[in-house]
């Protein structure tokens, strides 16, 4: 092969690369970091499916730019890995937006990165209040434990219940929930008679049930992360006779999330929760959302709070792309969505300009069997709930 020929080849390759570059210039990439394998794989699946539903309904282009989602798997809470993946997305994939994040530590780990690269980060789930305080480029479309718990505690107090025991998993969100409940409930004149922090790895919940019984509580407030633990807890609650004894069960909606309901079975019936989304939410938009989901994926069994978190997150990202005309400018993008209000499958929502967290209606739901299927029936709504935990006590 002669030198000239080699140079010509190289030149052609170089030109091709340049061309390819310009052809991609109006494709905007969004990096989604979430668990797609491992014990929490369902979460990643709900994110991805909800995004696909959103793109099927609203198209893949916005203001002349094609939006493309790039998925990175983070199978369990691992902040170092989260940061490494985010870095890879920014440097190699040249993403203009970061999104996803199921666990709080993973979301927190990218704060310095998004500030340095001036990239907005839309959180689809991670629910510890403190996150959005760590960087002005965070926007969150899920919920926080404070947001769910404050209206619940007020509701419990209004029922005339005076003595409540709290039982939460011993980690960040659990402690957020416990504090929020205790503060609100005691302000409303109630008394928390026992606060139990259960190890995250607990499998046998009967001992905690005995303690609740001994405390003389009329009701319990419980929070455990969705999954094997909630199953054990709800079963122990009914098996040890606490349910039969008339003790009421309150908690945030993670405990009765839709994919777990068939497994929880009758143990879940009668649990009262507050949450931002129920599949049974009565609105045309929600019915369209679920119908599209069934059309694309055959079923809507796993649609749950993480689905709407991602669906609304995609909506926020589309608005950001529109506002920045396809250029990556995190500060401007976040500025554009402050105060933005829209109708979501969960009802009316708004991005609070100060906390950059979604202000929304929190629904009071009761788990019941309807047409042979368990569902979370919404019985009341508390509109315009902010994140009560944002800069709490500061």
């Amino acid at each position: 092969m002669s030198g000239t020929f080699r140079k010509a080849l190289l030149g052609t390759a170089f030109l091709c690369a340049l061309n390819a570059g310009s052809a991609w210039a109006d494709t905007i990439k969004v990096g989604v970091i979430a668990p797609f394998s491992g014990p929490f794989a369902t979460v990643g699946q709900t994110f991805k499916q909800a995004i696909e539903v959103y793109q099927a309904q609203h198209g893949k282009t916005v203001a002349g730019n094609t939006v493309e989602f790039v998925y990175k798997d983070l199978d369990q809470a691992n902040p170092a890995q989260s940061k490494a993946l985010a870095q890879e997305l920014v440097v190699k994939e040249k993403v203009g937006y970061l999104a996803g994040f199921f666990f709080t530590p993973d979301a927190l780990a990218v704060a310095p990165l998004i500030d340095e690269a001036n990239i907005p980060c839309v959180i689809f789930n991670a629910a510890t209040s403190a996150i959005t305080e760590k960087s002005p480029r965070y926007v969150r479309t899920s919920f926080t434990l404070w947001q769910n718990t404050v209206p619940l505690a007020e509701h419990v107090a209004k029922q005339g219940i005076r003595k409540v025991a709290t039982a939460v998993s011993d980690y960040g969100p659990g402690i957020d929930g416990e504090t929020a409940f205790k503060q609100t409930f005691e302000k409303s004149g109630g008394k928390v008679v026992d606060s139990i922090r259960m190890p995250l790895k607990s499998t046998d919940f009967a001992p905690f049930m005995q303690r609740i019984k001994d405390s003389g509580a009329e009701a319990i407030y419980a929070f455990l992360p969705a999954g094997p633990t909630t199953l054990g807890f709800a079963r122990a609650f009914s098996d040890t006779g606490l349910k039969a004894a008339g003790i009421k069960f309150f908690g945030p909606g993670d405990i009765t999330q839709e994919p777990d309901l068939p497994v929880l079975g009758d143990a879940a019936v009668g649990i009262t929760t507050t949450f931002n989304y129920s599949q049974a939410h009565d609105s045309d938009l929600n019915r369209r959302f679920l119908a599209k989901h069934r059309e694309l994926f055959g079923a809507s069994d796993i649609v749950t709070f993480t689905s709407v978190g991602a669906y609304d997150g995609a909506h926020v990202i589309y608005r950001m792309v529109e506002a920045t005309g396809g250029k990556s400018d995190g500060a401007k993008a976040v500025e554009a969505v402050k105060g933005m209000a829209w109708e979501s499958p969960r009802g009316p929502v708004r991005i609070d300009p100060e906390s950059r967290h979604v202000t929304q209606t929190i629904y009071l739901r009761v788990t019941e069997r309807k047409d042979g299927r368990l569902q979370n029936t919404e019985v009341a709504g508390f509109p315009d709930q902010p994140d009560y935990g944002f800069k709490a006590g500061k």
Partner: protein
Amino acid sequence: METLFGIVVDGVTYGMILFIISVGLSVTLGLMRVVNLAHGAFAMVAGYVASYAAQGLGLPYAVGLVAAILFTVLATLPLEKLLYRRIYGSANELAQVLLTIGLTFVIVAGINYLFGPTLKRIPLPDALLGTVAIGPKSIPVHRAFVIAMGAATVLGLWWLLERTDFGIKLRAAVDDPNMAAALGIRTERLYTATFALGTGLAALGGVLGAELLPLEPYYAIRYIVLFLAVVAVGGAGNILGLAAAALALGIVDTAGKYLIPSFGEFFFYAALILILFRWPHGFFQGRAA
């Protein structure tokens, strides 16, 4: 007083569930000297089969239980022939660990693919629902059933290993395989039978314990440490020692949860360390087969 009673009753139940699942591991580890880290995976497979039999095919609980045990034993026998036979004996522990943990990952991925990552349940029959009163405390009928099954397993295994021809031959084959073979004992068959016994016990525990250790694909990895801890304290291959260990750890863990729940797993592991410090080879050292 009532708290004390509660600790004992709940602790014994938890201990019995730990016992039923761990005893199979103890049998393979103690009698055949195989560190079978896939034990939890076998228990999980049985749980999934029982769940499928009950929910997918609508079979009664007892039928599902038997089917799950048979299926698990039959499905793992080829593994014994093809893989485990190469790693018997204590000379190559590293190979044992690598092979069995690899097998665990394969099973986890397979279950995840076939059944998805969500929880599965084995619905209980009406006879096992409700509660039964023991003194001032009422415990779920299902737990009482598990305690009874655990006690039956202790007695049955003790009888099998100490009082039957099979047990005598097995102990001979374990102590000196060459001499046993020279005396006309078919050691390979014995090993296959023992492996099947261990797997069957894992299957029994996986199905019975499903209410306490819920079924999901990571069951195999999540709980194996628990089972190994029980075997370490009880002494491998020692049935009565294992029962004592399971009960002791179950009661200690339960007492911790009753009294100081925020200490988490502290009491379980503290007990583990103290017991192993005093009895490095587990309770009833030297009695192991």
